[in-house]
Every structure is written in structure tokens, then in C-alpha cells.
């Protein structure tokens, strides 16, 4: 603004400031999409990027299961009304501190650790970590021994206990193999965002952020620097890719 424009009308100045203030208040709830471009399809993923999530438990609404529904729809996971054996890639957990009686709620999924115990124990190497940090199950070589399910500190893995009637062709899943949250790798590889993160912002909660935590300019990195992000079971030293605020 030059000196000549100083005599801008009071009304427009007030209007603009009010709008800015409104933007500031609403901004944290805005869907923060940080990925710039999709990598070309014929290029391998590299470790220049590490995908992560930041979840703010203060914004996570206790009764809301938008992320869970979105994940189930996206990945074609159907319920068989058998909660003990049904696959759950993401779940909502409500916790209460025993001393302070403070309650929080958060979504729990595969934490995409940097040193995943599930990868260490898999006898065939089907459970593996991609260079960009996403931990996956290669169901072509999974023999269904379920050792990774024993070893996962977050109970993130599910076993396909019955024949899977596939409804989606971009997430092949089958009976007898182990599966878990893939961080919507089929979307991420094309520049997208996991379905749960998207659903959370569509539901106007904005508790979940997804992005590249190796990129200091990404939204998630900035949020991590500003507000911090704790790992669940941090004492295990796994350096998870999914971090939480407020635990």
C-alpha cells in the first residue's frame, strides 16, 4: 500500500479486518492440504518424503466416526456383524485419565513407525516399510501367520477371517492375509490425501492433518514445530509417523 492509498474508506478497512479476523478463527478448521504435485506414475517412491499425520485430540469429537466410515467406504471394508473378527483399519477410542478424569477421544490406526516391529517379525518380509515411510502388507507373499498382529504395539493389524467380497479394485484384499491402514497409499501416490483426513475436515472438525513431515514448509511440519506431536507408546522408540496433540 502506498501513501496515496492511506485514505481508504473506513468501511472497507473495517470490512477487510473483520474478514481477516474471521479467516483467522475459521482457518484452523480449514482442510489443510499440503501435497503439491503427484509423483509421476513410473517413478519409484523415495525417502526424500516421509508421510505422516498429526491428530489433534482436542478437535476430535467424541461421538463422531466420520474417519472410520470413510475408511471403510474407501477400502471396501464390509462389516459382518462380528466385531471380534471384523477388520478394523481405523477405530475411535475414548480415553479417560485415571487421576484427572479428563476425557479425550482419538482415532487409532497403523502408526507407520520408522522402526516397525511388525516389519521386524514378518518371516517372509510381506510386512514392509516403503521408502516414503508408509508401512504396508504385501498380500502376495503374506502367509497369514499373524505374527505381526502379535507384535504390533498398537493393535493396528486385522486378519481377514472370511472371504472378502471385493467391491473396490484399487485395494485388493483377501481371506487369510493380514491387513492394516495403508494411509490410502493408492491416493497418496497420485497426490491425494487419506480418506479419513478428508472426512474429518468435511465433518468440519479438522482434527487430522496429513503431509510430508520431511518437508519443513509443509503444513504438518509447521504445526508440529508450533504445537508438538506426541507418539503413543513413545517409550518404545519407534518414531511413529502418526503424532497426536493432547495425549
Amino acid at each position, binding site marked *: 500500500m502506498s501513501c496515496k492509498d492511506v485514505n481508504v474508506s473506513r468501511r472497507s478497512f473495517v470490512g477487510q479486518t473483520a474478514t481477516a479476523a474471521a479467516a483467522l478463527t475459521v*482457518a484452523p478448521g480449514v*482442510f489443510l492440504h499440503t*501435497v503439491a504435485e503427484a509423483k509421476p506414475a513410473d517413478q519409484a517412491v523415495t525417502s526424500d518424503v516421509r508421510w505422516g499425520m498429526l491428530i489433534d485430540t482436542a478437535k476430535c469429537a467424541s461421538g463422531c466416526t466420520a474417519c472410520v466410515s470413510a475408511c471403510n467406504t*474407501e477400502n*471396501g471394508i464390509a462389516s459382518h456383524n462380528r466385531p471380534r473378527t471384523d477388520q478394523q483399519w481405523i477405530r475411535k477410542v475414548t480415553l479417560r485419565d485415571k487421576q484427572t478424569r479428563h476425557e479425550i477421544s482419538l482415532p487409532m490406526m497403523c502408526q507407520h513407525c520408522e522402526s516397525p516391529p511388525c516389519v521386524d517379525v514378518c518371516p517372509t518380509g510381506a510386512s514392509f516399510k*516403503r521408502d516414503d515411510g508408509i508401512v504396508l502388507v504385501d498380500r*502376495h507373499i503374506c502367509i497369514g501367520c499373524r505374527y505381526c498382529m502379535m507384535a504390533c504395539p498398537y493393535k493396528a493389524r486385522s486378519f481377514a477371517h472370511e472371504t472378502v467380497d*471385493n467391491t473396490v479394485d484399487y485395494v485388493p484384499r483377501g481371506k487369510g492375509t493380514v491387513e492394516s491402514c495403508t494411509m490410502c497409499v493408492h491416493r497418496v501416490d497420485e497426490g491425494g490425501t487419506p480418506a479419513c483426513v478428508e472426512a474429518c475436515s468435511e465433518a468440519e472438525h479438522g482434527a487430522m492433518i496429513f503431509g510430508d513431515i520431511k518437508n519443513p514448509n509443509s503444513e504438518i511440519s509447521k504445526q508440529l514445530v508450533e504445537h508438538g506431536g506426541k507418539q503413543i507408546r513413545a517409550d518404545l522408540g519407534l518414531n511413529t509417523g502418526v503424532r497426536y496433540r493432547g495425549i
Partner: protein
Amino acid sequence: MQQFQKRMHNTLITIAGLALLAFSAFVFASPEGKPSFAPEVPHPTNGTTECVEPEDDMKKNHMNYLLHQRDETMHEGIRTKQYSLKECINCHVPKDSTARFGDNQHFCSSCHNFAAVSIDCFQCHMDRPMNKEASGSKALGKNPHGAQMSKPVSTKIASTSADATSTQGSKQ
């Protein structure tokens, strides 16, 4: 007598061998170059006439292409379409096909049943093109602001005052 028997024996073997040769020549020398008892492999109904590789190459090597591609896709995130199983199905199996893998009318099992080579791909993968309207929200490009995900999108928080005064109050 022994000599005669031996010669007779050799002659019979020769005749039998020649007959077999003639039979196979007759059987295998049909116009398409394949045996007349070979299965009827359905052709794609979407108008394409060429596969990603020549037909003979595909017959011999499709399993190797698929095997190589699956490791590249899973472990390295390389999602080229040329050898993708999903794309094979999208082309070779009609969209509203009622034939499932295992039926003789399904493209893959028409030959695999005949050759008696069992495959377990379709215990996990879909054996026909997905009905995109029915389920799954992955129509890539869906984000709450309606913008294409593949294009660069960034949403700035109006965190600095310079940004605040310059914004017209609209977010991307």
C-alpha cells in the same frame, strides 16, 4: 525270423510316429495356428484390438510381466498402467460381466481352466471392472473444496498480517 521281427517292429514304430506327426500337423495347422480343441478366449468388447504387447509375447510372458509389476507397485509405488492387472481386467472383462473367474466365459479362466494352471490373483483382486458408482469414494480428485487433487493445491492459514489484509476473504 528274428531279423524279420525286428524289421517289422521298426516299421510299425515308424508308421505310428508318422501318423502322430500327421495328426498333430492337421490339428495344429488350423488357420489361427492353434489346436482345434483349444479354448475359446473371449476378446475385449470395448473396441480395442491390440494388447499392450504382441499376442504371442503375452501368451508366453504375461505371468512374468504381472509378477514384476506387482513387486514394483507394492514396494516402490510405481503405478504404470501397461502391466497393471487392474488395467488388464478393465480391458479384457466387460463391465457388467456376469462371468466370474473360474467360469469358462471369463477371459483369464477360459485359458487357465484349459491349461489347468491355478492362480490365486482373484482371491484378492477384482475379476471384473469396478462399478465406480456403486462404492468407494476414490474418484481421485475429491476433496472438500472440489479442486483436483492432482493439481497443486495449498491452503494458507491467514497467519501473517500481510496475508490477512490482502485476502478477499475467500479460501481456495
